[in-house]
């Protein structure tokens, strides 16, 4: 706090009073922060309390498996890990294709705890990594917002972020995914950038590059940082806010950050080669040009400067044109224009659905609906505009960054549901600013008009508001910024304001609102906050705490648990050979390798489209063709998820059209219209014969009719089309208690001895097969 310190030298008594208040405010803020951290951690424990301490969903299982490997084999083995349990027969280089931040973090925590003789299992550490890091993230939010708008806004924003449902959905205990640590890294990198921008300290600039490095390690979303910060720099340059602080904040980040990013195996030379990073280098050049221009401007006379500008501009334009032409040619020569598919689908929302069905098939890559905004950020959606306005009065470097951050992240969240996560911190920061400013205005108005306090001087009131760390008014803010950063603009402001302390007080009095309206508004604001808290607790407890591998349903006779997934995985783990290959749709790949410890053909790391298309083709082919595809892949077991008996909607039949689409994208003999009757996807008696004969249909509904006699599918709410059929190339080896997972074994290939036929079951079939065989035999004597 700058203001009290300056007054301290003059009046010692006031100094002690203020110091005490300051200390009290500091301690209060510290405890509030501590409690926010505790809340952020504990609100995410609903999943552990309601369910159990277990890893959730799909991707976390992979991360968990990698962490186990890291804990067991050490870091060097981890970098060199070639995983032969997945993408059979290709395998996957885990060390070079995984963002290692999360696993290294959890591995380090585990190692640290174990070296202190605290024998927690790797699983426990993994389960609680996300809640711990969300506490860190809320503290980072405090720091960031404090840099922008002061302590009060910081505390409010931290409290909002600690329980924002969007972030909770990705960081409940057990949701061990990259985003869990990446959001902390994101906010912290932004904080350090703003801090460097405000102080111009190289120390923070270095820290900033390290934080950026951690972000690169953690999540592919780091490209957001490396594009947002250049945009902000560009904005500052364009609006005439160039300063040496800006240079220090940006130049080391690009140089050090790019060097560090290239160290991460999964990024490597992409850090300089791909278009995602191009903006940062361009801005880096522009920044140097601008810095150079400012420097030249400083040493030359205005007349000489003009001459120099015309000279440089004419030569420079020519050079620039040439360079840009070369670059454009280079970029245009690559089919995706140097962008990765996911980034392209961000820039052009229709891109994925047109060209890459595999990205479009993931539900979290779909655009969000309006209700999902309300669900995920709730009242913040209304507070964000107010916060943006608050950022403009006055507009500083830091607050312009917040405005830019929220503007871009709103766009991204509109493209993909998943990126709501990036939007949530921005929404929390702006809402925090809005709330704290509003509180500030209302409480000040009340304070001025209450009879008891009215006799106090305005100066005292201003001091209280600053020292209790509740909020800061804009006048003070500008004072503080002027102290901190001797920029040109604020210096001007300082000059204006210094001789007019009386005018300041007058202005403040005028800003005061009527007592009753401010009291009511205050109450309404508190009510809004309470609504938010209620909604967040509900979302954390009900909507986002389910681990999705174990389902529960409440009926009149109590709680019913559907633990079928783990039943099937446990069965595979203990009762099949350790090297057997299991084919399933890619959604279940990570879980199968982690829980069942069996080799899979495809998994959730969808790096090889052809391989996935092969499995999709097999699933949508008739039995014999499917058997041949699976047999050529050494598959021994096929796993399908079927929800028709208990009404579990996200089963393989509902995902089946994506298998057809992805399969048909590579193997054109699979055509989507063959599976649709008049453009409608159906499995009842109106379904097409191709649909009723494909492997997925057969494996899902095999002997289903014997359960209730009618074969009524509770997900599709219809009776199935083909009820009685036999499997010729597959046999059922396991079905879970509620039929949610069914595992089939490929029958061994028949002996192909010429002249001998297999033991005939019925005479008619033998004769026909014999006739067929002799028919083909003539064409190909070796077959």
């Amino acid at each position, binding site marked *: 706090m700058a203001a009290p310190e300056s007054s301290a030298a003059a009046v010692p008594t006031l100094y002690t009073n203020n110091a005490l208040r300051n200390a009290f405010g500091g301690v209060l803020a510290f405890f509030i922060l501590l409690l926010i951290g505790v809340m952020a951690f504990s609100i995410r424990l609903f999943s552990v309390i309601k369910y*159990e301490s277990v890893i959730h969903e799909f991707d976390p299982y992979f991360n968990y498996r990698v962490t186990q490997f890291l804990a067991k084999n050490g870091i060097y083995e981890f970098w060199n890990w070639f995983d032969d349990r997945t993408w059979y027969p290709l395998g996957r280089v885990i060390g070079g294709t995984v963002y290692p931040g999360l696993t290294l973090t959890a591995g380090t925590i585990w190692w640290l705890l174990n070296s202190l003789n605290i024998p927690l299992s790797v699983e426990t550490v993994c389960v609680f990594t996300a809640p711990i890091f969300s506490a860190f993230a809320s503290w980072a939010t405090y720091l960031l917002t404090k840099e922008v708008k002061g302590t009060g806004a910081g505390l409010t924003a931290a409290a909002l972020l600690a329980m924002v449902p969007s972030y909770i959905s990705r960081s409940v205990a057990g949701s061990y995914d990259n985003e869990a640590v990446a959001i902390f890294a994101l906010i912290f990198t932004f904080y350090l950038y703003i801090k460097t921008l405000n102080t111009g300290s190289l120390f923070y600039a270095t820290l900033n590059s390290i934080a950026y490095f951690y972000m690169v390690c953690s999540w592919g979303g780091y490209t957001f940082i490396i594009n947002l910060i250049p945009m902000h720099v560009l904005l500052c340059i364009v609006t005439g806010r160039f300063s040496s602080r800006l240079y220090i904040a940006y130049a080391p980040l690009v140089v050090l950050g790019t060097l560090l990013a290239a160290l991460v195996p999964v990024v490597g030379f992409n850090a300089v080669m791909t278009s995602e990073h191009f903006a940062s280098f361009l801005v880096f050049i522009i920044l140097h040009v601008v810095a150079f221009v400012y420097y030249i401007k400083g040493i030359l006379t205005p007349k000489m400067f003009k001459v120099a500008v015309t000279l440089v501009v004419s030569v420079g334009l020519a050079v620039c044109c040439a360079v840009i032409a070369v670059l454009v040619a280079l970029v245009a020569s690559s089919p995706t224009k140097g962008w990765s598919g996911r980034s392209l689908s961000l820039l052009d929302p229709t891109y994925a659905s047109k060209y890459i069905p595999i990205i479009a098939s993931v539900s979290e890559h779909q655009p969000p609906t309006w209700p999902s905004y309300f669900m995920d950020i709730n009242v913040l959606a209304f507070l964000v505009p107010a916060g943006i306005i608050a950022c403009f009065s006055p507009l500083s470097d830091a607050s312009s960054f917040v405005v830019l951050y929220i503007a871009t992240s709103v766009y991204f969240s509109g493209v993909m549901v998943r990126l709501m996560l990036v939007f949530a911190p921005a929404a929390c920061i702006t809402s925090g600013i809005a709330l704290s400013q509003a509180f500030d205005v209302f409480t000040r108005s009340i304070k001025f008009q209450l009879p008891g306090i009215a006799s106090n001087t305005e100066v005292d009131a201003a001091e209280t508001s600053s020292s209790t760390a509740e909020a800061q008014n804009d006048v003070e803010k500008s004072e503080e910024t002027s102290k901190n950063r001797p920029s040109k603009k604020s210096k001007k402001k300082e000059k204006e304001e210094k001789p007019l302390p009386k005018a300041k007080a007058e202005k403040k009095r005028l800003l005061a609102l009527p007592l009753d309206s401010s009291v009511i508004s205050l109450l309404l604001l508190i009510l809004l906050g309470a609504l938010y808290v209620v909604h967040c607790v509900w979302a954390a407890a009900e909507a986002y705490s389910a681990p999705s591998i174990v389902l529960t349903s409440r009926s009149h006779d109590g709680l019913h*648990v559907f633990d079928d997934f*783990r*039943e099937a995985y446990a*069965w595979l783990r203990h009762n099949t050979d350790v090297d057997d290959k299991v084919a399933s749709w890619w959604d279940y790949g990570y879980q199968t390798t982690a829980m069942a410890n069996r080799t899979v053909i495809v998994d959730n790391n969808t790096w090889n489209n052809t391989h996935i298309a092969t499995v999709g083709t097999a699933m949508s082919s008739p039995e014999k063709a499917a058997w041949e595809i699976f047999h050529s892949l050494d598959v021994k077991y096929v796993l399908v998820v079927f929800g028709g008996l208990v009404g579990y909607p996200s089963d393989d039949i509902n995902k089946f059209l994506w298998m057809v689409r992805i399969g048909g994208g590579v193997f054109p003999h699979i055509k989507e219209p063959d599976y649709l009757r008049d453009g409608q996807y159906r499995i009842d008696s109106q379904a097409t014969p191709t649909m009723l004969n494909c492997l997925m249909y057969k494996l899902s509904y095999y002997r289903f009719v014997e359960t209730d006699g009618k074969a009524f599918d509770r997900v599709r709410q219809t009776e199935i089309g083909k009820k009685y059929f036999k499997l010729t190339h597959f046999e059922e080896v396991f079905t879970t208690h509620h039929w949610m997972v069914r595992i089939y074994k490929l029958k061994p290939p028949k002996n192909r001895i010429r002249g001998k036929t297999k033991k005939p079951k019925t005479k008619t079939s033998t004769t026909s097969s014999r006739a067929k065989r002799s028919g083909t035999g003539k064409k190909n004597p070796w077959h």
Partner: protein
Amino acid sequence: MEAPIRATEFLRFTLLSLLFFVCRSSPSQDLLISNAERRIDLTSHIVKVYLTLKVENAGSTPTSEILLAFPPTQVDHLATVEALVTKGKRKKTTLARLDVKPTELPDAPNGTKYFTIYLSNPLNSGESTTLEVLYLFTHSLEPFPAEIGQSESQLVYYRDSALILSPYHIKQQTTFLKTPSTKVESFTSVEPTNRAGTEMKYGPYEDRPPYSFSPILIHFENNSPFPVVEELVREVEISHWGNLQVTEQYTLVHGGARHKGVFSRVDYQSRPNLNGVSSLRYLLARLPPRVHSVYYRDEIGNISSSHLRTDSRKSELEIEPRYPLFGGWKATFVIGYGLPLQDFLFESSDDRRYLNFTFGCPLLDTVVDKLTVKVVLPEGSKDPSAVVPFTVEQHLETKYSYLDVVGRTVVVMEKKNLVPVHNSPFQVYYTFKPIFMLAEPLMLASAFFLFFVACLAYLHIDLSIRK
């Protein structure tokens, strides 16, 4: 398949028994068994044999050792041998337990193994006594056919001898076999042999010389599941703050006829009496009373299918594996629970403490192939010693748990081939000073104290280079 096996075995054993006739060994000279009755219970997968022997000393010198003989194939599966002697006369008979120890004899014919029963009072010449011997065999029912489908019932072979193998002359003997159901496919007939209902009677046979052997083979239906715990690790951790934490890691396998081919859930659910009759649907664990915080999980999380019933005398935990276990199917799981310390930890007269806990597996009717019991003593305890009613392999380990500095002493006891009979109490004695209980709280307190002092120091020392 069946006939040739039986024929060759019969031939082999008759040859052997002929051989035994020739080389009679010394101990059979003095003693003879006037009457022997054997009851073999084949209803579960643990074969229980109750043997009543009336032993007579026909020699001139008093003897206190009586030998039991087992063929080498059986002795591998022998889990336990117990002998009791009836004391007192007529109505006031009491049973007294006798020591039984395995013995090696130099001239054992064809690998016969012996156990010696030590009588408390020597048997004088001309006297006779009645011994009750109980022994249990595990893994002695061989499924045949070795692989069955889901709807088939489980048939097993049991091999034994119609005559009791003994180094002594037996005047009269009878063997009763009890099968679980009346369904018996075949059995070897050694006249006189009778079969009535679930019981078969071999004998009575009169005046059989030592080492008589007459192999029999019974093929019958046994649809009880064969729960076999291949490995069980029980860890008992003592905390002097008042808790005894038990963690048990199981590797369970269904030891019956292997499952073959299709597993159809629809058949299994709709016709439970015909399908998978020998499958293992649930297990019952008998835990001590006042058990708390029970959990049942495996390496991928909690298993929700379990029920705990507690009353003042015992607690019963009914657990279902994640999936029904068919023959040859495996499952692993962990059961853990806490117990109040005062029920199990006592102070002995010589100022030492001892833990009194149950050895063996709490699951009912299971065979444990290998059991490891680890007793984790509190940090700072000294001179551990274990007292177990039967022979076990013992060694010491060190374990580091929460915030340990020197580590905790772990008494490790290992034993193979256990049956529920082995669920008997054992004791671990050690010395412990209560001051060690405060070590960890003090350590934590001092760590925090140092942290705060460091914070204070940091705040009050100006470390900047520039003034």
